[in-house]
């Protein structure tokens, strides 16, 4: 299948086929002020209008899944925490669910509540961070500085509760590592009251500002059908009117009791257009939704144990005996995080660990969004799915000096090969069937 793998000349040829004759090629990335992480966009523009776009990810690939299979399961949590700096509790939360399912570990109710509280606090700080970035991409730095200033208290609060501003090291198999003692409740409630008083301001600043509206209304439209067909997740899907939220569709932790409902622009009493404006709106609405969730959690949180296996040595011993597979899903601020894990008895490290970050699902929604937009819209449209390239990158091909691109057929073949390789590591009860 040599012809499936193209060198630079063939790639240039292939690109030329795809473009129009009067187009001008504008490369954005892998290093560009509009991008916070390395990814390369190639735009073919006519005047200011975008005719074609190509995306080339892979610059940030770190091979974390492979590293994970060289560690024991407790060490794995720390690694999972470092997949993403912003959703730094989302990956561990999905991982612990997967391992708990595989090993059959129960989680006490109080721990479930604490997990939800930390997860929702993270959503608040992540959405505020994003709102600041969006303002900056629009050239509205005043709003960036304002939003990042009001983001500080939630980070301070997280530090107060967990000891860290990010990477909280809270989830562990069977529970959480730190309790939220009742004397910290007032502080939490104060912070929530502070944010509740600011939500209205934020909505005003972002949604009723004429210059922001001029830059985001009817820009980067992703229709409901496209969002559904491209499997968009998180706020990206919800802003297109798709009521899709892991907390609503497959509730976990204490979410079944909390009755979380996926928010769309309709909840603001507006029609769904699926543009950047709607994506700003949905994220700001979710900030206030998270405040409500945390408030309810604080009221309803029962007393009791915070973990079912307090001793790490005992936990490791139990995990070593565990056999089976599990999946964990969590609604991260950017969308669904999915972890798959396969454990085998007498092995400390997982045999297989598969991670899917939300950006991986949202990447393809860039194509309809960029269609017929202008160069000036590139930064805000790119930012509007809240991309996290590091978490998402799966593969990077380097062979000597030659840069190569793998097309679909070749990629499929490589994936089958890898599955076979992984299957060969699985010695017992492998669903793929290789034995001995």
């Amino acid at each position, binding site marked *: 299948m040599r012809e499936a793998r193209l060198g630079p000349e063939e790639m240039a040829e292939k690109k030329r086929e795809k473009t129009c004759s009067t187009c001008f090629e504008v490369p954005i990335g892998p290093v560009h002020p509009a991008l916070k992480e390395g990814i390369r966009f190639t735009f073919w523009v006519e005047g200011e209008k975008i005719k074609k776009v190509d995306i080339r990810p892979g610059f940030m690939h770190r091979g974390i899944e492979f590293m994970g299979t060289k560690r024991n399961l407790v060490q794995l949590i720390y690694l999972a925490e470092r997949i993403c700096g912003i959703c730094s509790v989302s990956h561990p939360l999905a991982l612990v669910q997967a391992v708990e399912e595989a090993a059959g570990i129960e989680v006490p109710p109080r721990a479930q509540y604490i997990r939800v509280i930390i997860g929702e606090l993270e959503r608040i700080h992540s959405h505020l961070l994003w709102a600041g970035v969006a303002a900056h991409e*629009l050239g509205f730095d005043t709003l960036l500085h304002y939003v990042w*200033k009001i983001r500080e208290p939630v980070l301070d609060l997280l530090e107060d509760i967990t000891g860290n501003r990010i990477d909280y090291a809270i989830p562990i198999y069977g529970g959480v590592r730190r309790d939220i003692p009742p004397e910290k409740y007032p502080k939490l409630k104060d912070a929530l009251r502070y944010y509740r008083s600011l939500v209205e301001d934020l909505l005003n600043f972002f949604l009723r500002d004429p210059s922001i509206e001029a830059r985001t209304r009817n820009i980067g439209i992703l229709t409901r059908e496209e969002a559904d067909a491209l499997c968009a997740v998180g706020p990206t899907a919800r802003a297109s009117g798709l009521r899709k939220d892991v907390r609503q569709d497959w509730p976990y932790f204490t979410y079944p009791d909390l009755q979380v409902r996926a928010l769309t622009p309709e909840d603001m009493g507006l029609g769904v257009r699926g543009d950047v404006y709607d994506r700003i709106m949905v994220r700001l609405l979710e900030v206030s939704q998270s405040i409500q969730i945390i408030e309810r959690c604080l009221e309803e949180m029962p007393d009791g144990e915070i973990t079912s296996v307090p001793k790490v040595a005992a936990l490791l011993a139990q995990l070593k005996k565990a056999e089976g597979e599990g999946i964990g899903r969590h609604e991260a601020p950017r969308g669904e995080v999915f972890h798959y894990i396969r454990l085998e008895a007498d092995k400390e490290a997982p045999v297989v660990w598969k991670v899917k970050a939300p950006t991986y699902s949202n990447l393809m929604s860039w194509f309809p969004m960029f269609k017929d937009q202008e160069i000036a819209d590139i930064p805000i449209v790119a930012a509007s799915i809240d991309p996290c390239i590091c978490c998402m990158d799966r593969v990077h091909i380097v062979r000597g000096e030659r840069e190569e691109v793998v097309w679909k057929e070749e990629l499929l073949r490589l994936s089958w090969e890898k599955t076979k390789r992984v299957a060969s590591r699985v010695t017992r009860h492998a669903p793929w069937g290789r034995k001995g």
Partner: protein
Amino acid sequence: MSGLNALWQAILVLVGGGAIGFLYKGLDRKLAARLQGRIGPPLRQPVLDVVKLLLKENVVPRTAVPWLFQAAPFLAFVAAVTALLYLPVGPLSPVLHGYGDLVLVLYLLAIPALAMALGGLASGSPYAVVGAQREIVMMMSYEFPLAIAAVGIAWRLSTLGIGPSFSLATIAANPLWGSVGPLGWIGLSLLFAALLAVTPAELSKIPFDIPEAETEIAGGLLVEYSGVNLALFYLADVIKTLVIAGLVVALFIPYGIAAPLGIAGIGGKILDILFFLVKLFVVIFVAVTVIRVSFARLKVDQVARFYLLPTTLISLAGLLLLVLDKVVMGG
């Protein structure tokens, strides 16, 4: 005026103008930072920036047209500095008084922007080419209201029998507000508003900084410039800010405070010059600093629409009212 005398005056204006320009640039950055809730850089930061740029390597990209790429910053700088010499400083006449008028200043003001567009096109970077296209589109949109405002005032002055009516010194010496009727007042206010609206675009500041647009085209026109060339563009911007503010002051608020306060002689002149500097600062603060922290960056079509429709209409309405005023007053 002897040649030597003019030379001394020119040096004084340029050195003084440079110093004031740097001070105002520093103030602009500091105040913008305070408005955004930041601490901001020290006042001398613009000077430090330029000094550092002057020490840096001057890179000419391989894809550039070298002579045009190198010439553009000088063109921009020289044009901005020359325009400064045509500016009446408070009670003092312009250094080059009698050698050119308002129309020349308007052309000189257009040159730095054109030079930047040329340099951008010559640099061979796609970002700069996009920036150059935007710069030209923006210029074509804002030049019309700017010209209307200037011509409107000069024309009304000529109907009052004051001449040479296009000379900036004449305009500054004969404020129109006192000699027109109520209709003229409204007309002048509209022209004033149009000129203030044009100011941030002339200076490529948010919301009209589209030719540079950091997050979109990574600095656009300036993306390939470095070292001395970039320092020259920076200096041109510093001086041009003063010139535009000076033009606004000369056209619309040329009043001094020495005469009303009854201070004559050299003391009165110094007081008027200081008052002129305060007026410059107020114009820069209102039309540049406050505006650039209050808005998001617009897109090129939105900018063009803003200047071609509302701003042009406002300035035309202002001109029309001045004409009506002349008919009513029978000037």
